[in-house]
């Protein structure tokens, strides 16, 4: 059987084949589809969303100690959140095999940084495998469980966006049964008090030496000998790019990226006139090879930032004298073109809040989610975005030093609030902050495609769940000024935020409109523009709604009048509330004279 699968779907398939019993994650691009596929296609595996990556990782540790083959998945920055359990889990080792999938995002297609998580494997001293296509993503997951159980260690499977989201043909394998294990009491292994942990650290260092020996002989690392004087050491997606532009060079394809097979690599380097390391982001291999005394180059030709591409690899190879020809496409057209940044959807409930915040000219500390798009012109109503949950702490700090004359407002989504905003509010209450916090509650994890969370009432596997009440949590944290707000009511939004900026204690405003896309599309009757009434003032353009377009008619100054795309207008009414000449009317009430 063969199927066209994305890297993420292939990982899910691999989990099924290798007998994983528990899979856990918090959604995050580009990792989200791993758990979604498991829940959708392989319901025999118990899978769940946790409120954040730290909890997810800890649930995973429990399952592994309990004897099950366990999968934990997250985006690269998710592992920062889970770093605390991760680093000590490296000491305890496993019972049932444990694989942590790290999906990195070079180029930051949907991320706030492009950290290279291969360093995390080295930091924790655990083995790491790095697939270069969907087939390998599935096969290496199976290898990872063997490694995990053989060497009693968590194993990292590191994917990048292009592996996670590219599709390729996968030969499906047989389903095997995982070992039938139960918890075995062993405090010296699982209770990391100093006296135990000191002994475990010795084991960690011995273990990484053993896995380095495994790496030397493992077929996961192999040489492609094409009789060339020029050699390339590469892994992951970079291997595919290099093969595409220079198929006839010699290759050392690394599948086990940590620990590296140094002796085997040294042999390869010495057997070639010149060797280049082609790797995305940091010089993870290059630095280790140079520290080992090997003569290699890499970053000099390929750069440290962003994704590689066939084009970038070809350019670097040519510069290094490895190939003669590259295709130098003229990149002329893109210059001077207008940008088309992602924007808040028509009818997005976040829009009303950002319109009001912009009007009030307050400082807005932001967070991770769709509402980060509030930074885009013409809204331009966001001043910070650091990491999940940071908006609240940022606002408290800003307010404590009087950094903003007009006041500071934190905005955070519902899923992000549950992920790591709760402790921020605790801080605001405890330290007598008078910040205003807006929880933009659209009742889903929208940016990643509409996943369930603890306040939606459903689990990943579609079961009914206890539904957390966000206002109740906020009150329980000690906030007295808690407000419910309809963000489609512009004046009410403006007035409430203005009122709470003056309060001398923390306030939390919770907006209460669901996402218009998920879980179901919300459409009311669309509006139209009466071009005879429209004066071309452009106030409606400034609310940044994709449904509002420039019509071909202009006012006396030559500015375009507006028109509305009726196929995407959701009838949210926000544009009608900023239209002074009242030219925007319901479609059914528009009578053309």
């Amino acid at each position, binding site marked *: 059987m*063969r199927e*066209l699968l994305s890297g993420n779907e292939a990982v899910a398939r691999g989990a099924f084949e290798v007998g994983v019993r528990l899979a856990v994650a918090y959604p995050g691009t580009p990792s989200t589809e791993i758990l979604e596929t498991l829940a959708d296609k392989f319901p025999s595996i118990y899978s769940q969303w946790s409120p954040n990556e730290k909890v997810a990782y800890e649930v995973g540790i429990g399952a592994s100690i309990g004897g099950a083959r366990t999968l934990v998945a997250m985006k690269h920055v998710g592992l920062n959140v889970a770093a605390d359990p991760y680093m000590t889990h490296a000491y305890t080792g496993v019972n049932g095999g444990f694989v942590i999938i790290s999906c990195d995002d070079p180029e930051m*297609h949907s991320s706030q940084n492009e950290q290279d998580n291969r360093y995390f494997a080295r930091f924790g001293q655990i083995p790491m495998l790095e697939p270069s296509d969907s087939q390998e993503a599935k096969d290496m997951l199976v290898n990872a469980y063997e490694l995990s159980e053989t060497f009693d260690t968590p194993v990292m499977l590191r994917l990048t966006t292009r592996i996670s989201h590219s599709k*390729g043909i996968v030969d499906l394998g047989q389903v095997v049964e995982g070992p039938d294990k139960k918890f075995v009491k062993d405090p010296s292994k699982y209770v990391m008090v100093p006296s135990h942990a000191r002994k475990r650290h010795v084991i960690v260092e011995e273990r990484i030496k053993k896995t380095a020996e495994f790496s030397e002989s493992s077929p996961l690392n192999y040489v492609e000998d094409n009789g060339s004087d020029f050699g390339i050491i590469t892994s992951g997606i970079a291997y595919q790019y290099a093969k595409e532009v220079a198929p006839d060079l010699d290759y050392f394809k690394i599948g086990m990226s940590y620990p590296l097979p140094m002796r085997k690599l040294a042999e390869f380097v010495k057997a070639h006139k010149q060797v280049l390391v082609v790797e995305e982001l940091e010089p993870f291999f290059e630095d280790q090879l140079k520290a080992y005394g090997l003569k290699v180059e890499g970053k000099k030709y390929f750069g440290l930032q962003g994704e590689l591409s066939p084009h970038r690899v070809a350019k670097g190879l040519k510069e290094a004298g490895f190939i003669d020809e590259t295709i130098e496409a003229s990149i002329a057209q893109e210059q001077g073109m207008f940008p088309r940044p992602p924007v808040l959807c028509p009818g997005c409930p976040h829009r009303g809040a950002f319109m009001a915040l912009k009007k009030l000219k307050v400082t807005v500390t932001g967070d991770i989610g769709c509402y980060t798009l509030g930074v885009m012109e013409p809204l331009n109503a966001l001043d910070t975005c650091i990491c999940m949950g940071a908006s609240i702490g940022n606002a408290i700090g800003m307010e404590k030093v009087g950094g903003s004359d007009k006041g500071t407002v934190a905005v955070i989504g519902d899923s992000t609030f549950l992920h790591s905003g709760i402790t921020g509010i605790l801080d605001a209450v405890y330290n007598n902050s008078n910040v205003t916090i807006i929880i933009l509650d659209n009742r889903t994890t929208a940016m990643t495609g509409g996943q369930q969370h603890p306040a939606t009432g459903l689990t990943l596997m579609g079961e009914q769940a206890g539904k957390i009440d966000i206002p109740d949590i906020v009150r329980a944290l000690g906030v007295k000024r808690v407000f419910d707000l309809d963000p489609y009511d512009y004046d009410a939004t403006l007035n409430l935020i203005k009122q709470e900026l003056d309060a001398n204690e923390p306030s939390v405003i919770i907006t209460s409109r669901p996402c218009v896309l998920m879980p179901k599309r919300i459409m009311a009757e669309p509006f139209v523009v009466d071009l005879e009434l429209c004066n071309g003032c452009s106030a409606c353009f400034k609310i940044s*709604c994709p449904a509002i377009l420039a019509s071909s008619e202009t006012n006396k100054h030559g500015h375009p009048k507006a028109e509305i795309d009726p196929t995407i207008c959701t009838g949210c009414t926000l544009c009608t509330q900023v239209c002074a000449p009242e030219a925007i009317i319901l479609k059914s009430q528009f009578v053309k004279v």
Partner: protein
Amino acid sequence: MSKNYNILIVGVGGQGVLLASEIISAVAMASDLDVKKSEVHGMSQRGGIVSSHIKIGPKVFSPTIGYGQADILISFEKAEGLRAVDWLKEDGTAIISTTSLVPAIVTSSKEFNYPENPIEKIKERCKNTISVSGDTIAGELGNPRLVNTILIGVLSNCLPFAKQIWVDTIGAKVKERFVELNLKAFDRGRALSHSAVEV
């Protein structure tokens, strides 16, 4: 098929780029070829640019296409077609819908302009440009969301796959109640490109 085909599809979030690339990849796979495709999810779905790279042939390495390496460019929006024209090979084919979607950033600022006559500019770079009145045909068929299938119909004449494979794949990939309409859209596109190519 002895050579590789590199197909780049571009459009704006919501225009059905990803469904189109699913259909094209499945057709190639049904024809026993190696296939890889790549696209980026996440931010791009919020009205931003969506692109999908599809590579078909005896053996495919990179899932993405390099600059100047696309055999065929399909664009569901004409300015996006212009933006992506650098990806085309010199002798490549461009299939461009005359659809225009002007974003708020252009309507609300004086800094940016929507290009004038983008299709003419594409033609300056690419002799084999097929311009398709996607919106008009979709309107005639009664559903504005059919532009992607119409363009797939045009594409089907540029690739060496039997019509039946396209029909079967559309039947399998599109929601059941929309299959008939999509097959009509496919036929309209397929009929169009015969004449368009010959001209």
